[in-house]
């Protein structure tokens, strides 16, 4: 809990440029963000030493505070990459999307969102989403069009597609976490470790608690016999690797939760 006497930071052209570019991209990975920060320093104030990224961003956030905007940091659910996005705190969710999509497209997104949240795995199959096309508000949309719209969402980083199923992109989670918690308080899932919103993750088959894949990776790191933190039963799923920014390779996780074939333990 911070004291209310928070010093407002100083914005220079370096920070402003950074903000403009971050805004253009929507969401960026930490590596790209660091690179962007260096670029902004180079371009506007090459003599200055760059702040640490965390301080740099906190500085910007302190200025943006009064505008109800902030640069939020999150972690991608599937491979634990840190990401950053510029988020509006004061408006309803979907607002960033509202200016880019038609009414029926936004409604499609909302329906997909609801299916994703209600699902057990955090994924909604494209068939199920497309079946709801008749219930959309606004102009009538055919299934073919709906497929295109879903692809647009993927391109603009609101949804991720895997094997014909859709889940939320890290960006959508960052921007809409509060909205989701408010709209779906009963079906929303949370991580037992970080208490953040959970869409994809692993769950204990005995007591049902859930954890993000990166949270699992950290919690069980180097533990040869993982046990559920809640009920202490054996943790039956494959433990993913902790994300290492140095080793830039393919993500090592491929939804082990879904592929787990362990029998229920009673």
């Amino acid at each position, binding site marked *: 809990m911070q004291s209310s006497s928070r010093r407002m930071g100083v914005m220079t052209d370096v920070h*402003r440029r950074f903000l403009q570019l971050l805004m253009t991209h929507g969401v960026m990975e930490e590596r790209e963000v660091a690179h962007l920060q260096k670029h902004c320093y180079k371009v506007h104030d090459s003599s200055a030493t760059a702040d640490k990224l965390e301080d740099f961003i906190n500085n910007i956030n302190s200025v*943006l505070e009064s505008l109800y905007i902030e640069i939020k940091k999150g972690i991608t659910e599937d491979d634990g990459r840190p990401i950053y996005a510029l988020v509006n705190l004061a408006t309803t969710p979907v*607002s960033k999307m509202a200016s880019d999509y038609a009414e029926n497209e936004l409604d499609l997104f909302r329906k997909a969102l609801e299916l994703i949240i209600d699902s057990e795995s955090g994924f909604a199959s494209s068939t199920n989403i497309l079946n709801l096309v008749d219930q959309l508000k606004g102009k009538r949309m055919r299934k073919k069009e709906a497929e295109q719209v879903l692809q647009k969402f993927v391109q603009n980083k609101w949804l991720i597609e895997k094997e014909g199923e859709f889940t939320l992109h890290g960006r959508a989670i960052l921007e809409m976490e509060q909205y989701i918690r408010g709209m779906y308080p009963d079906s929303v899932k949370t991580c037992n470790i970080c208490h953040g919103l959970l869409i994809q993750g692993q769950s204990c088959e005995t007591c049902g608690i859930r954890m993000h894949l990166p949270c699992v990776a950290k919690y069980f790191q180097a533990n040869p016999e993982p046990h559920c933190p809640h009920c202490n039963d054996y943790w039956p799923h494959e433990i993913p690797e902790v994300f290492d920014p140095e080793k830039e390779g393919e993500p090592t996780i491929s939804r082990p939760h879904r592929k787990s074939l362990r029998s229920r333990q009673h």
Partner: protein
Amino acid sequence: MPRGQKSKLRAQEKRRQLRGESRFLKTAQASVATEKDPAASAKPQVEDWSAKTQVEEQSAKPQVEGQSAKHQVEDQSVKPQVESQSAKCQVEDQSAKPLVENQSAKPQAENQSAKPQAEDRSHNFPPIGTSCEHKVPQETPATIGAASAIANADSEEGAKSQDVAPPRTSSIPELWRRDPLNKKVILLVQFLLQRYQKKEPITKADMLKFVIKKYKYHFNEIIKRASDHMELAFGVDLKEVDPIRHCYTLVNKLNLSSDGTMNDEENMPKTGLLMIVLGVIFMKGNCASEEEIWEVLNMMGVHADRKHFIYGEPRKVITEDLVQLNYLEYRQVRHSEPPRYEFLWGPKAKAETSKMRVLEFLAKVHDTVPSAFPFWYEEALRDEEERAQARAAARARTTAVVSVRFRNGNFYP
């Protein structure tokens, strides 16, 4: 064994039942009093937030009824969080401390664990009358929440200042809260940002309709403050380009060069592709066949028939989108049968960037410097010279015109 269908259906049913029950529960609670019992306060964050979302499209009615009315208007999903009403009532009912806490706890939805809800809420108490009266912009159905108000912005304060590491806390300068105009300023800033990103001009009419509404007599004040914010935080200037039709545009004050903004760091994903295509065209003597372009793109993993995770449909982008925007020229090779096509630089590309810049971009991509490509470097240098001369000539012409007019006694061209 993996969970069977029956088990899944049962779980869904259960969830739906619970949803129904809690709705009922909330309605019951709402009608009781403004006092929240501990059970209810167990889930304040989420409920209050939905109150918030639903409040946003309300017109100024007494808050309690307003909320339920909102529920009908707001078509997000049928999850009336009626009790969150009391959250809004908190403004009127200063004594109901628990409410205040709940409302504040709402923004901290992320910190699910029972955080002490009595944070610095007390100082966030807005003066009675401001938030209550505050009218929220009426949303057209089409724009779901594009410019929703911060109905309880004051109580929203808990949501601010997300440090890179949790937990979140709040602290807003006192003077912001006391000022109802401020909410409009904030909304306007967000509205302008959206338009800026889409590079659309902004009319006063639009601003009044979507954001300012009943405060239209304060338009000048609001727009001044919003543009100050934009300048301070984002380095963009709000300029009136058409004083008759009141059309505004946002200009980037941080322009690095006089020629335009194209720069490899600042490209939207599509323009990254554009730079490469321009580079190929340049290196093939300012005209490249479609096959040559695809050869290079294929090496980067961009294929004509495959969707790209950044560029979408690459073929459409380069043969249609970028051509329409005048960045590229795409024409059939003369007398080619079957028809083959070639690419050239379009007029917009020539205006917004230069051969030197494209060469710099390519050099960077190959981790080297432009002079490593001597032949093209020479050509780029010549191009720079020509441009500089053209600029000087243009300036000379303008000066000449002005001085002629001056001599003839015509001071106002």
